[in-house]
């Protein structure tokens, strides 16, 4: 049953992604409207799946890379839906939906033995808070990343005075910059709260706030990267190209931390190869 829920969600998100790609080519509003509805339905299925998992496990369903990827895709979808409400920018979906779809595909293609016994350590109330805030922040940053990529594509065309097919399909530079900015403003506090609650959780579970675990170190580097970006934006007035480039660099760092470090170089944050579940 739970896998069916996820598969339905995956199918709908893939369908919506296809639709949104068709939309960016064909520019027919009805194509977008339907894709958006399908995407929303997929998101609902995904949400139900996660709730079911949460209830079954008694904790946030992020104990393996497989489930974390899925969860990341879910927060990205959620953040996208929020921003779509605010900015009503149809083309945004054409960039975000593929990202969510790829993460879900990666999740579904990874082998994973469903965790049956969950270590009591994972039953702390701090874990869901830690995970939810970190991933919500990551979702925001994913959106900032997509907007930054769109910004660079658009700004390149305007600067070089060569207009491709994307020119008319992408929104204005100011809009894209505003989306990046907004996503950063929301994402950074979320990430910060996520790291603090993580530390509290670590103190409770492992007896120390900070253990220089590789994932912690890399997360700190990512956090510093975003801190610099936020600082430059708010005080120096960085914007546009420079901010977009840094946002993309930071997001690459984030993905690196999330996937590579989690897999190979971590202690208790590790998903310990791929089967997931129960570490230390």
């Amino acid at each position: 049953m739970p896998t069916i829920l996820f598969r339905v969600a995956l199918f709908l998100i893939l369908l919506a992604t296809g639709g949104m790609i068709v939309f960016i080519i064909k520019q027919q509003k009805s194509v977008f409207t339907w894709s958006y509805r399908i995407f929303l339905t997929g998101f609902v299925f995904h949400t139900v799946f996660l709730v079911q998992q949460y209830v079954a496990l008694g904790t946030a369903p992020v104990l393996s890379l497989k489930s974390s990827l899925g969860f990341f895709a879910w927060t990205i979808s959620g953040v996208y839906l929020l921003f779509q409400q605010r900015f009503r920018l149809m083309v945004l979906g054409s960039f975000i939906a593929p990202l969510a779809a790829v993460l879900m595909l990666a999740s579904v293609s990874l082998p994973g033995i469903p965790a049956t016994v969950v270590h009591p350590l994972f039953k702390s109330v701090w874990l869901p808070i830690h995970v939810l805030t970190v991933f919500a922040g990551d979702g925001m940053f994913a959106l900032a990343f997509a907007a930054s990529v769109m910004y660079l594509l658009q700004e390149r065309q305007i600067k070089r005075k060569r207009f491709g097919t994307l020119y008319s399909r992408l929104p204005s530079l100011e809009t894209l910059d505003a989306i990046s900015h907004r996503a950063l403003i929301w994402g950074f506090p979320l990430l910060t709260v996520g790291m603090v609650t993580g530390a509290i959780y670590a103190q409770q579970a492992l007896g120390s706030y900070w253990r220089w675990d590789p994932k912690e170190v890399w997360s700190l580097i990512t956090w510093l990267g975003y801190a610099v970006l936020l600082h430059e934006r708010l005080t120096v007035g960085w914007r546009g190209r420079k901010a977009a480039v840094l946002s993309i660099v930071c997001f690459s760092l984030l993905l690196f931390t999330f996937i590579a470090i989690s897999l190979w170089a971590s202690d208790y944050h590790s998903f310990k190869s791929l089967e997931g579940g129960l570490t230390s």
Partner: protein
Amino acid sequence: MIQIVSIGMNHRTAPVELRECLARELGNVQRALDAMRESPAVREGFYLSTCNRVEALCTTEAPEEAHGMILSLFSQFGGMDADALSGSLYTLEGMESVRHMFKVAASLDSMIVGEPQILGQVKEAYLQATQKRTSGVILNRLMHRAFHVAKRVRTETGVSDAAVSISYAAVELAKKIFHELTGRIALLIGAGEMAELAARHLIHQGAGEIRVANRTFDRAVQLAEAFRGTPVYFEEIDAQLLEADIVVTSTASADPVITYDQVKRSLRKRKNRPLFFIDIAVPRDVEPRVNDLGNVYVYDIDDLKSVVEINRAQRAEEAIKAERIVEEEVLRFERWLKTLGVVPTIVSLKQKVENIRLAEMRRSLSALDGLTPEQMQAVEVLTASIAEKIIHDPILTLKRKADRPSRDQVLDMARQLFDLDET
């Protein structure tokens, strides 16, 4: 048989003096509609008058007379001989006329193809026709289809996307940078005609404030007044660069007026807000290197010209798609028009009733199983005659109205009541 006829002139067939002549008086539209309503030759009439076209469209059973009547209307408005006028006119009949109307509404027949104003003008003209009660069943349908075509062309093709004049192209670019121009400050350096045109476009798009700097301050004041803007001294440009969002330069200066260092200095104080230079001066007023600065965009006159060129080419491609849409809709309209006769309506009415009867018979077949062939025959006859009797009076009414002026209304009503039109 009812005919659709349109007569008119546009920017291709008539020189601007003549079009002006016909379009000059505002009351002409009302007078034309009145005249068409009075004329026995004209059933329904529509009259469109813009700066690029004047045309009349009518439905009639006597095309020759209607044509003559409209021609005399034109010659009366233009104050010239009908023969002299006819060289500048085109006359279209039947589906040609429908196709033309669709194209006009979709801005495919405009001087600047894709310009959006024409649809509003057509809608306004149609409104006047309905107020003067010169529009009827056919015209109503025709105009609504025309609006539909215009919408399809706008959403399904890129015909109206691309800017084809330099100042318009500049404004479009500004929108791709700033999203909207509301509240943006535009600084004009130099007060030439092109700058004025660009300023007009900027204001039209909602630009918040215009400031004008010119070597001769008098002229700056003059131009600023025209746009309710602020004149500034030429020496103030440095300070103005901190506030402006869009800078239009058009001085006759031989040396650059805006230098790389000057702009670079201003950027940090501007907090890197984007700055868009539209340099329409030859030789150029803005050092080309300025474009290398972050968040600064410089377009000179050649850049804008090439944007316009690309847009023209694109628009031509999209126009083919638009033609296809028009063709589709013309065929659809033609099909509808053919059904708007007494005989076709009676045929489809009979067909519809017979279909219902047969469907109901089939449904009750199992219940009628026990009947003998004779009884079965009787049921057939019974149902058929009920059906026939029910539509007998409507058919008689339709036949009686065949030659009355109210025929089209009755036909239209009948088709609606019995839901005879394909959707």
